C-alpha cells in the first residue's frame, strides 16, 4: 500500500521543493519505489532539481488532468540518471508551458481525478511512497492535493510571516482529517536554541515537529541545480532527512 506524503508551505522560499526532492531520493535509497508529483501547477520547479530543467517532457500532469493521456505516460523514471544504487524514483512533472498552466487553472480539476491517477500510478510502478510537492498558500488546488494524503508536512521558517498562515493551514488539514500532520522548521540560523524552539512550536501549533533543519550555506549555493544528498552523502543534512524519513514511515 502506497503512502502519500504532501510537502507544503504557506509561503514561498521555505525550501519546500528542495526538501521534497532530497527526502524522496533518501526514501528511494532505503530500497523503496518512490514517485514525486509536482502539483505546483502555477509555478512548477521541482523538475529543475531533478535535472530536467532544459528538457521538455512528452506529457505532464496537466495533460493527464485534461484527459489527454494516461497517468503512466507522464511518469519519468530517473533512477539511472540519478545513479541511485537502491530503490527506484519516478517524477510526474507539471507543465512548464504558460498556456497549459492557464488552462488547468481556469478550468480546474477534480480531486478524484488526481486521486485515481495517483492510485493507478502506485499500482503501475509498485510504489511504496508518493511525494506531492504542492503550490504554496491556501487555495483550492492545495486543499485538493493535500486532502488525499496520508501524511502532510508543513515547512516553515522561523519568520513571523509564516506563523499564522502555517497555523491556519494545519487547522484546515485537521478539518480535512489528514491522518498524520507534522511541522518542519527549515533554514534555522546559527545561534538559535533548536530544542527550545521545537518545544515552543509544539505548544503553539499543537502539531508535532517532524524535523528541524539548520540553514546550510552549501545547500543554498547549489541553487537547486541537483539533489544535494546524492553528492554529499556524509553531510549533516542526511541526518535531518533521516529524522523526517522516520517520521513519515512510522505508523
Amino acid at each position, binding site marked *: 500500500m502506497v503512502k502519500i506524503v504532501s510537502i507544503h508551505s504557506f509561503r514561498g522560499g521555505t525550501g519546500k521543493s528542495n526538501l521534497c526532492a532530497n527526502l524522496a531520493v533518501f526514501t528511494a535509497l532505503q530500497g523503496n519505489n518512490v514517485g514525486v508529483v509536482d502539483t505546483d501547477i502555477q509555478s512548477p520547479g521541482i523538475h529543475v532539481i531533478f535535472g530536467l530543467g532544459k528538457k521538455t517532457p512528452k506529457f505532464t500532469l496537466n495533460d493527464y488532468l485534461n484527459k489527454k493521456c494516461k497517468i503512466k505516460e507522464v511518469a519519468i523514471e530517473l533512477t539511472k540518471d540519478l545513479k541511485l544504487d537502491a530503490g527506484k524514483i519516478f517524477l510526474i512533472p507539471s507543465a512548464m508551458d504558460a498556456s497549459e498552466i492557464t488552462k488547468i487553472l481556469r478550468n480546474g480539476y477534480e480531486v478524484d481525478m488526481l486521486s485515481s491517477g495517483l492510485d493507478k500510478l502506485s499500482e503501475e510502478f509498485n510504489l511504496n511512497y508518493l511525494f506531492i510537492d504542492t503550490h504554496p498558500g491556501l487555495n483550492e488546488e492545495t486543499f485538493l492535493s493535500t*486532502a488525499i494524503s496520508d501524511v502532510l508536512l508543513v515547512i516553515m521558517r522561523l519568520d513571523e510571516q509564516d506563523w499564522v498562515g502555517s497555523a491556519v493551514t494545519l487547522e484546515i488539514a485537521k478539518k480535512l482529517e489528514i491522518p498524520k500532520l507534522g511541522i518542519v522548521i527549515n533554514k534555522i540560523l546559527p545561534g538559535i536554541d533548536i530544542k527550545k524552539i521545537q518545544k515552543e512550536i509544539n505548544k503553539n501549533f499543537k502539531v508535532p515537529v517532524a524535523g528541524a533543519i539548520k540553514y546550510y550555506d552549501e545547500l543554498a549555493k547549489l541553487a537547486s541545480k541537483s539533489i544535494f544528498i546524492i553528492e554529499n552523502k556524509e553531510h549533516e543534512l542526511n541526518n535531518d532527512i533521516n529524522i523526517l524519513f522516520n517520521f513519515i514511515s512510522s505508523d
Partner: protein
Amino acid sequence: MVNIDRKKVDEAVAEIEKSEYFQNVLSQVKKIRSMKNDSPLKNKINIWAGLLAENEFFKLKHYLKYYEKKISQDQLKNLPLEPHFKSNNLNILNSPKFDECILEYLSFREMALKFNSIKCSEYVYSNKPNKKNISKK
C-alpha cells in the same frame, strides 16, 4: 519566541470553512475516502477498468477527436451511430464531469466501445495517437 495570534487563526479557519471551495473539497474527499473503504464498489470499478483494454481506449479517444474536430454539426446525422447510442452520450464521455463511479456513464462508455468495434464506420483507427493513423478505408 514563537507566539501565534490564535484569535486570528480561528477567524481565518472559520471563514475558509464557510467557503464554497472548501465545502467542495471536503465533499470530494469524503467521497474518495468512502470509495477507498467500499471494496464492492472498488471491485466494480476494477471490472469496468478491465473492460477498457488499452487498444480500445485509444480507438475511442481517436474517434472522439474525429467527432469533435472533423464533423460539422449538420453532418452529425451522417455519423454511423449505433441506433441506441446517442451523440450526447459521447459528449458525456468526453466531458470533465465524466465520473467512472456512475454506472450510467459507464454504460455509455461500454456502448461507445461496442459501437467502435462493429463494422459500421468507414474509418480505421490505429492505437497510436497520431493524425496519420486516422485514414479512410
